């Protein structure tokens, strides 16, 4: 069979009918040898011993299915030119795709941004879509935060959700015990999460590759389990409920006197608060993006990327890799902390169940799918992943299966993510995108 595959692949671009005929004949022969014995003859227990049942018809259909399947493969997938391109997509289509991306790329970002701003006021936008928008934006923000650690610094972090949890619990507990408002807790949650980022950073400084991934994974679980078991402080599995909702800079979203609607002379509607939350997360996400883009052009951002490329070379150039790694962990964690406190105020209730490993995996999938280090890639991937999850909500248990399959397809199709180029942080004459093939992926890949 292996030989047959080779001849099939060697058939190359042209349609060689005799080659295909020969290949199919071999397939049929092998199929007959295999299925002829296993399917055509079947023994059944009958009274007084075994009886032989002949099923030539079934065997014939199975062999036919194999031959037809192989024919389809020969005519489609295996027809790609030998050597060179590793992906299954024809060269011409790839070129067109790159061209299309380059053309739309410039207009794409402003259009997406504009859409995000007017989205709550569009006629078809209802409560459900707004909630979905908020969810997607939360993951965009988390993706951008994780992108600093994984995409730029190249440190594989499988426990990112821990910082999200730290941010959420910081706000919930500070509000519960000290009655602090959301606007004071937001920066505090960021600082606390960054602090935990540094705490995680220290033990993993010397770790590379798989070991780094395992320790960060464990860290994520430790935080969750502590939250689950420290009943007196965190409420354990009961979680924390009654977390204060955010106010419009002091004006609460409530019915009647002194409420948001009353203050601005509007009719009261519960959607006001949702729209406010939407803009809140939009602004938080845009701040994350702005800071990341800014940092990339500063020495620290360039040092993160250099760290991903070659740590030893970094040290030989006098870069303190310890502080560079710690700042990457702390900055990434800080944004997760912001997102976490937003999550707490939106939900009004948090429990350790919201911060399981699957969340970390989802955020990491968004970053990898989007193309490591690419900001707009994260947006596309979040919309695809979270939006896709919603579309396939009907399919229930098959949802994960469909997504697993989609991920596999995309990794075959575009192994370096949707946006597979790296934009240089500085240029002399002309900004040329660097192909991702040349970019190192850092530790743990």
């Amino acid at each position, binding site marked *: 069979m292996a030989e047959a595959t080779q001849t099939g692949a060697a058939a190359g671009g042209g349609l060689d009918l005799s080659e295909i005929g020969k290949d199919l004949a071999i397939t049929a022969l092998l199929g007959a040898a295999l299925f002829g014995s296993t399917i055509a003859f079947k023994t059944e227990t009958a009274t007084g011993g075994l009886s032989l049942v002949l099923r030539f018809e079934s065997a014939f259909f199975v062999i036919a299915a194999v031959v037809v399947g192989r024919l389809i493969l020969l005519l489609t997938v295996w027809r790609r030119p030998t050597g060179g391109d590793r992906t299954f997509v024809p060269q011409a289509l790839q070129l067109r795709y790159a061209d299309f991306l380059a053309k739309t790329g410039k207009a794409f970002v402003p259009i997406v941004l504009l859409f995000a701003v007017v989205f709550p006021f569009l006629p078809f936008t209802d409560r459900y879509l707004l909630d979905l928008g908020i969810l997607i934006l939360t993951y965009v923000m988390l993706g951008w935060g994780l992108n600093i650690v994984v995409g730029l610094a190249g440190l594989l972090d499988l426990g990112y959700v821990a910082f999200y949890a730290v941010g959420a619990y910081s706000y919930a507990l500070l509000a519960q015990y000290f009655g602090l408002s959301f606007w004071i807790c937001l920066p505090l949650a960021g600082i606390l999460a960054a602090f935990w980022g540094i705490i995680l950073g220290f033990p993993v400084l010397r770790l590379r590759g798989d070991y780094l991934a395992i320790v960060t994974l464990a860290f994520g679980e430790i935080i969750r389990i502590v939250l689950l078991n420290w009943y007196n402080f965190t409420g354990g599995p009961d979680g924390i409920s009654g977390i204060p909702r955010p106010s419009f800079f002091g004006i609460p979203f409530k019915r009647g006197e002194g409420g948001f609607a009353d203050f601005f002379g509007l009719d009261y509607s519960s959607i006001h608060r949702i729209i406010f939350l939407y803009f809140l997360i939009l602004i938080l996400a845009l701040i994350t993006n702005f*800071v990341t883009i*800014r*940092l990339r052009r*500063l*020495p*620290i951002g*360039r*040092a993160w*990327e*250099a760290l991903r*490329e*070659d740590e*030893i*070379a*970094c*040290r*030989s*150039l*006098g*870069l*303190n*890799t310890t502080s560079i790694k710690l*700042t990457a962990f702390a900055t990434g964690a800080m944004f997760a902390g912001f997102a976490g406190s937003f999550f707490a105020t939106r939900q009004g209730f948090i429990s350790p169940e919201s911060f399981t490993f699957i969340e970390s995996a989802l955020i990491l999938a968004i970053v990898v799918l989007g193309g490591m280090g690419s900001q707009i890639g994260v947006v596309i991937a979040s919309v695809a992943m979270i939006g896709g999850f919603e579309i396939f909500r009907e399919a229930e248990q098959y949802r994960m299966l469909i997504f697993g399959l989609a991920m596999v397809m995309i990794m075959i199709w575009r192994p370096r993510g949707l946006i597979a180029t*790296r934009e*240089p*942080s*500085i*240029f*002399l*004459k*002309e*900004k*040329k995108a*660097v*192909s*991702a093939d*040349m*970019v*190192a992926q850092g530790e743990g890949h």
Partner: protein
Amino acid sequence: MADKKAPLLTVEHLTMRFGGLLAVNDLSMTAYRGDITALIGPNGAGKTTVFNCLTGFYKPTEGRITMHRNDGEDFLLERMDDFRITKNARFARTFQNIRLFGGMTVLENLMIAQHNPLMRASKQTIGGIFGIASFKRAEKEAIERAEYWLEHINLTQRADDAAADLPYGDQRKLEIARAMCTGPELLCLDEPAAGLNPAESEELNKLLLFVRAECDTGILLIEHDMNVVMGISDHIIVLDYGVKIADGTAEEVRSDPKVIAAYLGVEDEEVDAVGHEIEETAAEVRQ
């Protein structure tokens, strides 16, 4: 330029053991300011080990390594972290197998080498986020410095290409330029001519002579290419089995019988005589 023969780097009784293996045995040497010092020796003589001890990648078992900076300050390198050796002692190195940041552009590579001054100028990033003027000025200076080196290695045209895209010879030169961008007072090159064709190694010689002449930077190099070593070195140190067997100018070293025996090879009929000599040397060393 400061006094030509002032020591820049002194190595005293450097010994490096890996378990039972004695890789470097009681090596003492000096590199002088404004000199090109070459460290040569057959394969396995311990050259790269010495290098890794000097640059802090290994901690030597015994010995003292002192870097005398131009401003009169001394640094004991064997006690310093590897990145501080470059940052504070101004001692830069390149690698035998080129270690560029392949996915980053040529210009970015040169900018990363200027990380520490830029970091200071950006007030540890905080000022940089808000785009303070002093940072912009420092960044402009850093780009000018990068351009200066790009001109000298003839890569100005390729400044915005990925470093991994460059041909091998250019990558070597870029790595040297990148090390020079850290503003070193001593530049250590680990086999800079390895894999270069004769024309490229000629260019390399010119670049190294330029560094010595213009930048007030001493050079210490490990090299196999005798064209490079004999052509430009002011001072050659020969290692064999971790022991220093010769130390002097190119002429002195070339005519030293121990060196000829150990490194440059001998005629067939001399093998026995040289063999005795090696045994004697080994006996001396043991004592």
